[in-house]
């Protein structure tokens, strides 16, 4: 958003005036809440927020202009916090409520939503974790991997699906000319931690808590306290986050299988990709390809962003 205006327009005669008013209000809403969930007491230039709010918002007989603006600011922050929590249960479990809240606020301050859909809200979270390691220290690498994994789930849930290449076309093209694309909804991850197992543990714990709170007896039976899921220990892990019949799956990959898929995804020919699978037995490679084709992972090559 452009620099906030110092004053709201006194009259609204043009689209430019409308933009200034909207910039003023959006700036007020997007500024972080105070620790007690209030609107910031001062405007960006140091003037009291009460005074600035009164310049463009009418009070009524129950609420001041400041209080009316505060309602909208709270709704903005609570809505976006809820969206990030929904998309990042693993990161929330790892950091705990307080640190996750600080990370989410700092992230949204630097990268407010630029998309019409909240689905894209966490698209730059991995980058931000790298930019601000102090917010996740001493587990920054782990946090970044969990964020990558959770973004991969978003992509797998509703990412594009391209027409699957048929086996005849694949088998009729010489390997040194054959290039295979990977479905856009498949994300290959080379991880330093077994994030898939960690996220499954978190989801299982949260599902149990939810199950407990949804039972008819839940009014009399206390919901179990949130058990801390142990952080994963380092273990090199290769995984594809994908969907099959529109259900989300995490598929562990052999390192050689990962190298083949990564080479194909980056545009290499099949023969070059297979050369990357040093050490793998031909029969094993054939089994992998059979499984990947059954999953419908191969499509015509598409331009893919680096993961």
């Amino acid at each position, binding site marked *: 958003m452009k620099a906030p205006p110092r004053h709201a327009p006194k009259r609204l005669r043009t689209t*430019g005036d409308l933009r200034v008013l909207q910039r003023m209000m*959006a700036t007020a809403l997007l500024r972080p809440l105070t620790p007690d969930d209030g609107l910031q007491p001062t405007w960006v230039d140091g003037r009291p927020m009460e005074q600035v709010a009164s310049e463009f918002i009418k009070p009524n007989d129950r609420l001041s202009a400041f209080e009316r603006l505060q*309602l909208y600011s709270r709704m903005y922050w609570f809505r976006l916090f809820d969206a990030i929590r929904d998309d990042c249960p693993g990161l929330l479990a790892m950091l705990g409520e307080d640190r996750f809240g600080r990370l989410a606020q700092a992230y949204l301050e630097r990268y407010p939503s*630029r998309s*019409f*859909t909240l689905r894209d809200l966490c698209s730059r979270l991995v980058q931000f974790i790298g930019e601000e390691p102090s917010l996740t220290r001493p587990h920054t690498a782990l946090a970044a991997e969990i964020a990558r994994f959770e973004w991969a789930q978003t992509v797998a849930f*509703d990412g594009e699906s391209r027409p699957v290449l048929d086996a005849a076309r694949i088998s009729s093209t010489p390997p040194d000319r054959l290039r295979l694309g990977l479905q856009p909804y498949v994300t290959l991850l080379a991880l330093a931690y077994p994030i898939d197992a960690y996220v499954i543990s978190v989801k299982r714990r949260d599902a149990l808590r939810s199950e407990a709170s949804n039972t008819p007896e839940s009014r009399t039976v206390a919901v179990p306290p949130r058990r801390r899921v142990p952080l994963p220990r380092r273990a090199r892990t290769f995984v594809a986050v994908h969907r099959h019949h529109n259900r989300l799956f995490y598929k562990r990959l052999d390192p050689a299988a990962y190298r083949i898929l990564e080479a194909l995804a980056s545009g290499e020919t099949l023969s070059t990709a297979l050369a990357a699978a040093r050490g793998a037995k031909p029969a094993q490679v054939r089994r992998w390809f059979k499984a990947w084709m059954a999953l419908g992972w191969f499509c015509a090559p598409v331009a893919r962003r680096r993961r």
Partner: protein
Amino acid sequence: MPANRFNGHCDYGIGIGLRVPHYSHILSKKPVVDWFEIISENFMVDGGRPLQLLDEILEQYRVVQHGVSMYFGSADKPDRAHLRRLKNLVKRTKTPWLSDHLCWGSVDGTYTHDLLPMPYTFAAARRTAEKIRQIRDFLEVPICVENVSSYAEYHVSEMTEWEFLAEVVELADCGILLDVNNIYVSSKNHGFNPYDYVNGVPHDRVGQMHIAGHTKFEKYILDTHDHPVLDPVWKLYAHATKRCGVSATLLEWDDKIPSFDEVHNEALKANDFIDGAKKATP
């Protein structure tokens, strides 16, 4: 109006919002429902489960699209990429009309994901109407704009909210999605008579109505969509139906969502008021 050019000349009855907790019930039990309203943005995706689910629903039911992010009132130009996605969805659903809110929510490309109130000025009305026309021409589907519930007003406003709504829809030559719960909520928050609002809008442009529940707090009312419809809103709905005619009506229930049957039965209560309106109309 039961069927008019703003709702694709459709005489739809009483619908409910298509919501995740009801998916399995709807697909397995196939309950009789006049129509479902979908939130367009939930299905403006590239693939996966949302589109599969939508296609299964479309095989069985009539669907109308309702948006939450077009922001007709934002000073920004319409986002072409957003519009292309929306048009693809319109082709998929064959929605007879499409609705979104008379509000703004983004500026300079930054989104608040809220339905923020407009300043009720002639300049804002002209700009908003111009955008509605551009969007309708691109999407090639009738548009109804919905009045939002609001918690703040601007000093620069030059008219009432219903005068602003009338000004916009006349300039844009579009329809109205009259949300009677939003009228009631805003009337309490701003101290106007909700019947003046209903009486003041161009009735022949109403293509759809919304009803919903809200939550009262000490100093304001929030449009929470997490309750049954309250009596004052039903009364206002009955009045609106008498003035505007029986229109496609949709119950919004978006939080603390109970069973499908409970939501549907709540929506069907509208029939009591529709029958009353029909009897009162010669």
